[in-house]
């Protein structure tokens, strides 16, 4: 008994430690991780627009995760550039990209999101720092074009800069860059660097992005092949690339700055101007600068992605008004409340005082679930969706089911005529096995749904998985220890009528206070054991019932 008590108490202490720990990590996330005490809501509860984009690829071609990640990064840049904050961009099912935006995006944002990434190399004809927004253009920092009227002979010919173009360049504001339209490949055009700090006049395209075979980060080396300690990107071209690149480097290497530069253009903005130091004839170049490893990696990724531009088309587009979001949230919570009340009422009706154990256990499960979901929301970016709430509500049933399995097991043991304390332990041993394997099956279902599914299914599977796990924790660390403690009270141990564990009501064979006869092998092969024994059992049981009724009177 003392052992049981200390065991029960220990489990409850563990539970307290667990809850305190969860509160602690949530507190940490709120203090230092920018988290919050309430879970983030998904778009269908908060209102907003969800656009699912699917890649447009040739029949049978597949899209690699790497390309998809790159596309996500690029779309994020575009959405951020359009001034929409809190956009959430994720991949889905290893194929699609889901863009979730608060509110309703305008047509321009939609177009920007769908435009395919286009990478190209263009020679720099002129460059200058960006004009401050709204100010009058700074005085010319680039020399005025020398031969404004001649016909351009090469992509890097200064003759491309007509007086009109130069005037436009002088007045150019970086926010005027239109990333949704594609500048003609054989014409010069004016644009800015991706970060908006510099503006450029670029010549016609000399190398297409499709001709980039590979780009890899490598430690930078000097002309003797010794590592310099910096980082560089090794670029490999194929197709038309090497020829175009050779012509460009041959043409511009000896020109003064900035005309000895070519620009890596992605989505109409200059990712980076690169100075040509040497004529590259074989299409294998090394790009170096003051790169950190991350910067080099990012450039390499972008170059590589540019090699395989994927277009995206809208697969579905769903707009949810903020009011509808609030309605859905309210309906979800209301459904949860009603479901909870129904389960509680039914449990109390069926299990009397044990029903209150169900209530307490569900309350603990609710606290744990809330803390876990909030923590995951703060740290993993999990957002509670309507399907997720449905999962939570439905899990009330699953959680309560394991209590029922346990209670029914205890009742079975009581029916055999066992004392409550031993009925509790034997019942627990068996019930816990059943609960474990049932929950294992549910958990398996949730994990598979989560891993293999897309969209809404994930949110649902996620909450279902979490609550299945919490179910085991609650039943082992709370319900069972609590019953152990309660079993020592007179109310339960003597099987009060309202305890839900009344041996008489359960048909246990009773022969006076706390004296049970040896159980008859009632269940085991009743029919084969013979009619006589069964009759006797019933007779005894009836006598016991009568006895009990008399006592109550």
């Amino acid at each position, binding site marked *: 008994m003392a052992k049981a008590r200390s065991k029960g108490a220990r489990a409850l202490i563990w539970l307290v430690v667990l809850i305190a720990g969860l509160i602690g990590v949530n507190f940490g996330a709120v203090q230092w991780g920018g988290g919050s005490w309430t879970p983030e809501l998904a778009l269908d509860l908060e209102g907003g627009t969800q656009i699912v984009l699917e890649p447009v690829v040739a029949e049978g071609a597949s899209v690699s995760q790497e390309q998809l990640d790159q596309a996500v990064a690029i779309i994020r840049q575009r959405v951020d550039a359009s001034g929409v904050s809190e956009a959430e961009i994720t991949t889905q*099912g290893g194929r699609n990209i889901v863009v979730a935006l608060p509110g309703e995006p305008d047509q321009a944002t939609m177009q920007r999101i769908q435009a395919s990434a286009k990478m190209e190399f263009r020679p720099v004809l002129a460059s200058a720092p960006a004009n401050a927004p709204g100010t009058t253009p700074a005085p010319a920092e680039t020399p005025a074009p020398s031969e404004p009227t001649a016909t351009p002979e090469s992509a890097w010919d200064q003759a491309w800069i007509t007086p009109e173009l130069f005037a436009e360049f002088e007045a150019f504001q970086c926010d005027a860059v239109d990333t949704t339209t594609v500048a003609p490949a054989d014409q010069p055009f004016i644009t800015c660097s991706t970060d908006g700090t510099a503006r450029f006049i670029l010549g016609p395209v000399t190398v297409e992005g499709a001709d980039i075979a590979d780009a890899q980060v490598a430690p930078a080396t000097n002309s003797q092949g010794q590592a310099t300690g910096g980082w560089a990107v090794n670029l490999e071209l194929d197709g038309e690339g090497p020829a175009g690149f050779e012509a460009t480097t041959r043409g511009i290497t000896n020109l003064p700055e900035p005309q000895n530069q070519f620009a890596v253009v992605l989505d109409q903005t200059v990712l980076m101007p690169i100075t040509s130091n040497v004529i590259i004839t074989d299409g294998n170049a090394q790009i170096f600068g003051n790169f950190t490893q991350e910067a080099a990696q990012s450039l390499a990724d972008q170059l590589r992605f540019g090699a395989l531009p994927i277009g995206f088309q809208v697969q579905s587009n*769903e707009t949810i008004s903020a009011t509808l979001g609030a309605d*859905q949230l309210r309906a979800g919570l209301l*459904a949860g409340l009603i479901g909870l009340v129904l389960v509680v009422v039914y449990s109390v009706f069926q299990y009397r005082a044990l029903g209150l154990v169900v209530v307490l256990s569900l309350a603990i499960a609710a606290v744990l679930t809330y803390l876990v979901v909030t923590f995951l929301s703060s740290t993993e970016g999990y957002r509670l969706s309507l399907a997720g709430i449905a999962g939570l509500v439905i899990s009330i049933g699953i959680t309560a*089911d394991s209590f029922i399995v346990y209670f029914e097991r205890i009742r079975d043991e009581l029916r055999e005529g066992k004392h409550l304390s031993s009925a509790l332990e034997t019942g627990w041993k068996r019930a816990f096995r059943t609960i474990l394997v049932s929950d294992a099956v549910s958990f398996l279902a949730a994990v598979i749904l989560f891993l293999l599914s897309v*969209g809404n299914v994930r949110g649902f599977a996620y909450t279902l998985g979490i609550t299945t796990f919490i179910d085991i924790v609650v039943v082992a660390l709370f319900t069972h220890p609590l019953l152990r403690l309660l079993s020592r009270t007179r109310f339960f141990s003597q099987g009060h009528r309202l305890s839900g564990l009344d041996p008489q009501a359960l048909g246990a064979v009773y022969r006076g206070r706390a004296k049970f006869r040896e159980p008859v092998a009632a*269940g085991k092969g009743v029919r084969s054991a013979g009619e006589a024994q069964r009759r006797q059992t019933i007779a005894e049981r009836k006598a016991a019932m009568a006895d009990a009724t008399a006592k109550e009177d």
Partner: protein
Amino acid sequence: MASLTTIGNELYTGERSLPVVGKRKLWMAVAVGVLILLALGTVIRGGFVFGIEFTGGSEFRVTGLSSASAEGAAEAVESVAPEAEARAVTLGSDTVRVQTDAVTEEQAAEMRAALADLYGVESGEVAFSFIGPSWGADVSQQALRALVVFLVLVSIVLAVYFRTWKMAVAALASLAFDLLVTAGVYGIVGFEVTPAAVIGFLTILGYSLYDTVVVFDKVRENTAPGTSGGLLDNINLAVNQTIVRSINTSIVATLPIASVLFIGALLLGAGTLRDISLALFIGTIVGTWSSIFVAAPVYAQLRQGDTIAEAKAKPAASERGAVV
């Protein structure tokens, strides 16, 4: 005391008994008959009704209405293109959604104007989107994969846990019954199959097995080596002993689902909540039936002619003897 408890006592001792195993052929015939009826009904009614996410189509949404009413919306849209089969529903309190088959750009523009007219809003406030058929196809393809992977893994888990493939087969048979009946109800009633319904459908997987595991756990115990009596009798007793808890767990599981279904349908109309819970609601009810009247009879049939293994002299046996 609730009469369910008394019935439970009688079922426990064997005083009262449902002939689940004895009439197993009847129960299996009932199961097969139900499946055939549902299949026929589905075919006669014209197959499944798939949502716009599966078929592709156009969708209009009017939001920000002070009181949303779908009345006349479908007619307004169909006045532009009568063959477009418009379906209008309210979502929450301020949104009306109209879905149609795929329409041309011009038709869509006219439909937007018609809806704007009807609701007295600017044409630009009627959101229009085209839903490609691949969205639903993606979801269902992934769902199908999930289903197959799940079935393979869960068969292994069950076979290992129960240490007999016969139980795994019986459990899977009842799972298949649940899925088919749920699908059949969708087919015969003509409920719309949406991605959310597919989610609910997949959740039946975990649920249906939960119930069967509870029953089979008791069966395993009652037919453990060393127990006396006939194998089939003991299976029957185990099923009867677990009927009350099956009913209790099913009711408790169904209550929150019913609550989601009721609130979802009443407050939100068509949408995620209703679609997930409808499939689950059918699935749980069918699951309760099948864990008793499909799983156990099939298992008994598979074990027909077997006997309980001889007792090995070990302490556990005496404990069992005392319990059952």
